């Protein structure tokens, strides 16, 4: 919403990878590893996406919700803040912050429809309670910039408008990672264009050069995206379930 990312709170809040990859001590006690931590966040991203499809909100709301969820877990424990409650709550809060309000009862309705597992079933009251806690965890910083913003101009400029769909999809996938907490969104967008150029065998080197951005950074992000796709193939439902189980297990 702000016009200028560089003066935004989002920019001031960018974290280092090491800061994002800290498993809360309470979660460690339950045996949650860094991989589990990432898996659960991935799983919850998928949950938010799924729920969002049912309540019909814009992609921007989904992106903001996922960002809230990921930000919240840089400083809150999953044992204390059950991801199965945090995820829908972040969608609820993001829908307000992005001016596409979704009623809490509608969310609860679809949660029940989507999951028979009782562990996912939360009531309105609990979502509203968690909303306050998320707001606090976010320190009330609610503005998020997304890589989608300048995409169409960038693609037009790069002569890659035909790849819009693919790159849009790539950007959506970046929310399965923590990139949005770590890198400025326009660099994420450029990295996605970079990946798409590679996949489509299109040489965009000169276009990237004239952008005067830190190409090392763009390449680094692109590599992370490609690594993630490789890693993603190895993820199985069992792995995710095992990680989720650790949360509920009593030690």
């Amino acid at each position, binding site marked *: *919403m702000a*016009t200028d990312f560089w003066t935004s709170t989002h920019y001031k*809040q960018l974290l280092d990878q090491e800061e994002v990859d800290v498993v809360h001590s309470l979660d460690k006690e339950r045996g949650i590893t860094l991989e589990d931590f990432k898996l659960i966040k991935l799983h919850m991203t998928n949950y938010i996406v799924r729920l969002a499809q049912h309540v019909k909100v814009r992609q921007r709301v989904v992106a903001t919700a996922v960002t809230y969820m990921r930000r919240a877990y840089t400083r*809150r424990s999953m044992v204390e803040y059950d991801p199965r409650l945090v995820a829908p709550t972040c969608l*609820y809060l993001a829908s307000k912050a992005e001016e596409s309000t979704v009623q809490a009862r509608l969310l609860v309705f679809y949660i029940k429809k989507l999951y028979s597992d009782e562990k996912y079933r939360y009531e309105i009251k609990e979502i*509203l309670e968690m*909303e*306050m*806690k998320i707001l606090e965890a976010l320190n009330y910083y609610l503005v998020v910039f997304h890589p989608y913003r300048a995409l169409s101009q960038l693609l037009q400029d790069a002569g890659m408008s035909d790849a819009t769909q693919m790159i849009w999809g790539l950007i959506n996938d970046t929310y399965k990672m923590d990139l949005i907490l770590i890198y400025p969104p326009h660099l994420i967008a450029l990295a996605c264009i970079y990946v798409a150029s590679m996949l489509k065998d299109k040489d965009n080197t000169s276009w990237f050069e004239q952008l005067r951005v830190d190409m090392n950074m763009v390449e680094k992000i692109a590599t992370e995206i490609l690594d993630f796709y490789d890693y993603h193939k190895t993820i199985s439902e069992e792995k995710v379930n095992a990680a989720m189980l650790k949360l509920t297990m009593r030690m």
Partner: protein
Amino acid sequence: MAGAAYGQLNLEESPSWGSRSVECFEKLEQIGEGTYGQVYMAREIKTGEIVALKKIRMDNEKEGFPITAIREIKILKKLQHENVIKLKEIVTSSGPEVDEHGKSGGHKYKGSIYMVFEYMDHDLTGLSDRPGLRFTIPQIKCYMRQLLTGLHYCHVNQVLHRDIKGSNLLIDNEGNLKLADFGLARSYSTDHKGNLTNRVITLWYRPPELLLGATRYGPSVDMWSVGCIFAELLHGKPILTGKNEPEQLNKIYELCGSPDEINWPGVSRTPWYSKFKPSRQMKRRVRDVFRHFDRNALELLEKMLTLDPSQRISAKDALDAEYFWTDPLPCDPKSLPKYESSHEFQTKKKRQQQRQNEEMAKRQKVQHPQQHTRLPPVQQSGQPQPQHWAGGHNNHPMGNNTGQPPLTAGGPSHHQYGKPRAAGPNRYPPGGNPNPTVGGGGYYPDRSAGQGGVGFSGGPYPPQPRAPGVSGPRGSSGGYAPPNYTQNVPYGGGSGAGGGGGGGRGPNVGGNRSQPYSWQQQ
């Protein structure tokens, strides 16, 4: 890195990223009240700093944290400008307040949330309502320039304020003016074509396009409000004081002419154009009604009060107007006088006390001693101090001689860190009292009646007296010092009914006004 970024708000107290507790502050006094929540003046215990705490009411548990508060927080966290009120942090209360509700203790969500703002001493309405106080032209230019600078910043950041009015313009004792109360503000973008509500902006300051039902609009809505404030500052009282929406529109037409496809291409396609179509053509009379304003002021006002929003001047262009670059130039905020703080809640209490004291004094036929030593500059000159509300003293040429505590001079400032929103976005429901400076209505019951009576739009415009004998700060200031301008209007159904000298000079001119006060003359 994260620590530093977040920690700029509350690093030491909350290494775990929580909000601080409201117990870090000592509430001193309530300075505002509304459906939105109370506003308190408070002291931060650790630093001694004075702040304003605006409570966010969490009554509506159906949809959690209010979206209006989310908007306001989002916007305020993003806007960092010397002419925009600064949101310092957000604090929560737990414990005791939870117990009051008798519900499960310890959960913060059951408690209250407070927005912590820098404390400001006045708002523009409260300040200009001070009896006997009149702003000088450099002072008006100074406030207007700050208002436009702050608004330009908002508009550049794609924020519409949508409730610009005097009581939302806070002023500190350094003469700084800051936009406050972003509870109705919205971010907008030119590419996102969503519809916006037209039920925003306090009626008197609402532009014609909103009254005609427009749901796609932009920064120009705020500029209309600025025009209303500008005229109000020069004229001495609100200029378009409709009691309901049709009447408001009619008053606008009476002043600015009726809209047609020539002066406002496309107006006939606004949703309620035919519904509110005036029965007869009306001519634009801005130059006539405000002919006592100086040329550059009038020129700027004309551009602000332009019916067609697309032709209305922008904040940026307004800042470039001749008005701000010709003598007398805007003064330095720091050169402005310091006034006793004026908050509705404080002045209300003081007024009550004063009333009691006066009655006592009457009974005992003795003058009670001066209770306050710090006088606003205006008082020191022995400026008449109307006490219309109390009855009796308003004809007294020298308010101080009555020994009344000068503090009561503070106007009903209705301080707006947060404001009453009794009627939702449309604060003043049709038929209701549309007076934006009367909080609950009825505290100054005379006021709206008085203004209704003296407003120019009720019928033929009353003569705008030139007030012979007015000598403003400069020799030529007849034009700068609007004859009608005094601050006792609000009290006075006052000026007409009670003001002794009113009769001969037209309805707006009370006895005091033949001696316009300018603190510059001191």
